[in-house]
């Protein structure tokens, strides 16, 4: 990999030109300004209060990708590029469906040469490079994170994105507009529900007509499914999980709404158990009923692991945030935006660029 020879502004331009929808220029500028205080903070001394400060980029970032979703790795690489670091990316291992590997590879190939030379892809884990890295960013289970942490030098920064879940919270379903229903369906079906920002359950406050909500959501899911340009694949393992989830729901007598043609795009059910249970994903979502005060108990198994709560039909006066805050939720957004956080989003509560840089202070010029 070649050494860095561009400015932050140049890298922003290059990235935005290559991927204008994923990384719009204005948003990249806002991100750098918001995180580093000035868009040129990596390139020259910036006056800040009584001193001049300058951000220092890490030399090498080692990224260990999530196996299920390319977008989190793409964002991670983009952050590394913005700060001008060299990036070594350990791709997920080969699997039945290699879409993630392919997408990440295509993303890197689509970068302009000046940025591409800062990225190297690897199939297997390269201990030596990992040891040399200033920062290791990894996605995976807590056990994997703990193992990796133990292998790193004390002075290496480790940014661990452990497993997490997200939820939709609907307060007054009878007030949901068609747009909000469509937004809920978008959240469920985007990325085939595979990311930590994908809702794994829809929580509904009690005393509402579940049947009516289910009917409306089913309609929205079906419409959204047909709108998807690229339908997610359904290899044997995925078909098996979906069929199993549906059969379990039938056998337990749960109310279920299915696509009219029986396709495997989405499955909506009402699980009378309010306690959270992980979804088999791939468009399988359960409505669970819980009052706001009972949420803490019903979500106790995922305490500290809830990433995002998408909300719909919520009255501004309702104290719905409190129980989620006690559960450690780090992001709230409107339904429909769960999977599309702004670039400045604090993933797992961290500043995306701020975490990557260190600072130099020059007080002689003050």
């Amino acid at each position, binding site marked *: 990999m070649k050494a860095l020879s561009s400015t932050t502004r140049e890298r922003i331009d290059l990235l935005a030109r290559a991927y204008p929808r994923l990384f719009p220029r204005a948003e990249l500028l806002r991100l750098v300004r918001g995180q580093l205080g000035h868009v040129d903070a990596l390139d020259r001394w910036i006056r800040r209060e009584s001193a001049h400060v300058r951000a220092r980029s890490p030399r090498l970032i080692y990224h260990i990708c999530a196996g299920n979703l390319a977008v989190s790795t793409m964002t991670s690489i983009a952050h590394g590029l913005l700060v001008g670091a060299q990036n070594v990316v350990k791709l997920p291992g080969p699997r039945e469906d290699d879409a993630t590997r392919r997408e990440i590879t295509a993303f890197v190939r689509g970068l302009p040469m000046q940025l591409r030379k800062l990225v190297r892809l690897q199939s297997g884990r390269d201990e030596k490079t990992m040891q040399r890295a200033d920062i290791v960013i990894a996605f995976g289970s807590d056990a994997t994170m703990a193992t990796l942490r133990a292998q790193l030098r004390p002075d290496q920064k480790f940014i661990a994105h452990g497993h997490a879940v997200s939820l939709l919270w609907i307060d007054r379903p009878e007030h949901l507009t068609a747009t909000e229903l469509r937004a809920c369906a978008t959240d469920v079906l985007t990325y085939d529900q595979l990311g930590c920002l994908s809702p794994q359950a829809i929580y509904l406050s009690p005393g509402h007509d579940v049947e009516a909500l289910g009917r409306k959501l089913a309609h929205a899911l079906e419409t959204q499914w047909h709108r998807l340009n690229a339908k997610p694949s359904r290899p044997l393992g995925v078909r098996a999980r979906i069929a199993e989830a549906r*059969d379990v729901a*039938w056998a337990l007598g749960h109310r279920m709404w299915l696509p009219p043609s029986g396709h495997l795009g989405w499955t909506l059910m009402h699980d009378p158990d309010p306690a959270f249970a992980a979804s088999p994903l791939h468009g399988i979502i359960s409505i669970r009923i819980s009052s706001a005060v009972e949420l803490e108990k019903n979500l106790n198994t995922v305490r500290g692991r809830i990433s995002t709560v998408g909300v719909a039909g919520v009255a501004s006066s309702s104290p719905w945030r409190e129980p989620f805050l006690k559960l450690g939720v780090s992001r709230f957004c409107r339904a429909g935006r769960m999977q599309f956080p702004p670039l400045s989003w604090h993933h797992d509560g961290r500043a995306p660029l701020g975490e990557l840089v260190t600072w130099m202070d020059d007080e002689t010029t003050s």
Partner: protein
Amino acid sequence: MNFPRDFSRPTERRAWIAALLGPLPGKRWEELALELFAWQFARVPEFRRLCEGHDVTPARLRSWSEIPAMPQQLFKRARLFAHRDATPQSVYETSGTTTGEPGRQYLLRTDIYEAVAVEGARRAGFFEDAPDFHFIATSPHEAPHSSLSAMFGFWNRAMTRGRGRFAMDERGFATLRHDLARARRPVALCGTAFGFVHFLDALPAPLPLPRGSRLLETGGFKGRVREIPKPELYAQLARTFCVPESAIWNEYGMSELSSQAYAHGTGGLHATPPWARVLVVDPATGHEVSVGHEGLVRWIDLANVDSVLSLQTLDRAERTSRGFRLIGRLPRTEPRGCSLGAEDLLTPALPVSSIA
């Protein structure tokens, strides 16, 4: 609804065993399957709801192959027992490696299980030449909830009048090693794959078995720490016990079923006894895949009287013209990056300071 048979009565159960072990031409098989289906449909609410979900009722059913199959997972979440108020004689538990919660198979009595477990192995040819039996497994007395130990116990009673040895620890292995070294007649040594691995580890030197001996492994490794690929395990077993690989059998069964399928050698095809059938299905349609294609194993087991006769597994297999070739189990979960799965819920979140 009146049924010709009441499976809670010992005489009816004996008659059912006789029917299963007797001649079973296609039409007779179909009759028995539909009869058992109707009985369980009326008595197991979860099964009835599953079937109604698929728009299948006894009145509408045209063929046994249309019977919906109960997902294995349901045995963890419901009491699938056709004799609601009766006390089961035995409750067999699955290993519970996936979610931590074991599945449970309730048997009113073990009579049918014993009859088909013994007769199934006999008809597969595993009992040929009446070998002496030994088991690398916990005894049925020590493991009353293990269907495998129960089956080995049935074999032990049927074939060696209870003289076979059960060994699963260092002391037991030492005695077993001593017995095997002195064996002069063919031996049938049966155990789980991980049990064999431990036994191999405990052997200081090869232990040639008398000519005509055979090994039977079952159960895979089920989440054990140490796993050995099947070809490697078979090669090691063949070398250590001086038996041809064709004398190494695999038994494919599960706690939720009463019948078993058998295969020889590493690439052997599995075959079921006449009273059980396996369909290799596409889970999305429930229809059998074409010969040469891969699908999931679905059992229809006429001996599984006390719960449900049809079971949908997550075991991958290739359908062949002469049986099915097991490929392996689907991974416990999908590949996940940052998304939390069921197995993660079993472990508390690490405090942020310890991972960041």
